[in-house]
């Protein structure tokens, strides 16, 4: 039995998800960012109940991109880009509802306050 057959191969060539190198992954990310930027006026109107302004939406999108700024694995970046694209399609096609879109915004509190007084509880139905 030869030596190479007995030693388990730990280093394997990993098949890329989409991008081959970091430059390509970066290009995909920046492209996705531009797509989101271009969608801002439409997002504002489609989800008008969230009372977003365009500068605020720009900050929200940037915040969501910067959340993953420390990811260095190309395959992980690619998967995040794909997820971002799916999010984009859902947002652009208005498959989300207002509160689903509000989840992107960290300052938006989507938690519904429990009714405190008697009348508020009455209006809620209990």
């Amino acid at each position: 039995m030869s030596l190479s057959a007995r030693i388990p191969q730990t280093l394997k060539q990993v098949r890329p998800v989409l991008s081959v190198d970091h430059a390509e992954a970066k290009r995909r990310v920046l492209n996705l960012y531009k797509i989101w930027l271009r969608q801002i006026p439409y997002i504002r109107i489609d989800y008008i109940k969230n009372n977003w302004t365009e500068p605020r939406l720009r900050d929200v999108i940037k915040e969501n991109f910067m959340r993953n700024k420390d990811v260095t694995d190309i395959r992980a970046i690619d998967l995040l880009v794909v997820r971002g694209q799916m999010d984009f399609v859902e947002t652009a096609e208005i498959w989300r509802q207002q509160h689903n879109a509000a989840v992107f915004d960290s300052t938006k509190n989507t938690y519904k306050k429990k009714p405190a007084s008697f009348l508020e509880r009455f209006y809620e139905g209990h």
Partner: protein
Amino acid sequence: MLSSTVRLLMRSGSLLRPLIITARPLSIKPTLINLTEKRKTLINEIPRRWSHVHYTYPMIESRVMLILRLFDKIDSNSLKLDSRFVQDLGLDSLDIVEITAALEDEFWTEIPDCDSDHFATPRHVIQYLCDKYDVYEHIEPISAGKEYLEEAKAAADRAHH
């Protein structure tokens, strides 16, 4: 045969229309005789603003610098033609994408990613747009109009000071 003749007549009709000189005392347009006399001056001196905007170097420069000054993450005092976006102005690649989008809106064109990768200073941006519109720094198009060039120069001066 008939249809081709009709088509020819229709075409020639549109070609012959300028040859017919009618008495139009109130018309501002020059008659054909005036046109042939003044053809040289017409082409060289009258600003042809109806066809498209004539970009000049100072005009592109002032518009680019205005966009950059209005960008909220750039300190307009430290903005110079050769200040680098990343090192001197502290922008990241996402900000440069935002600037590129603003430039696309301003100049009504599309800047591909492979080109916007090389935007390191405002001068690079201006140079890129000048190359795109065949504008050269020291050559002024005759058809741009004198007063328009003066306006553009004044705007560029304001951008610098």
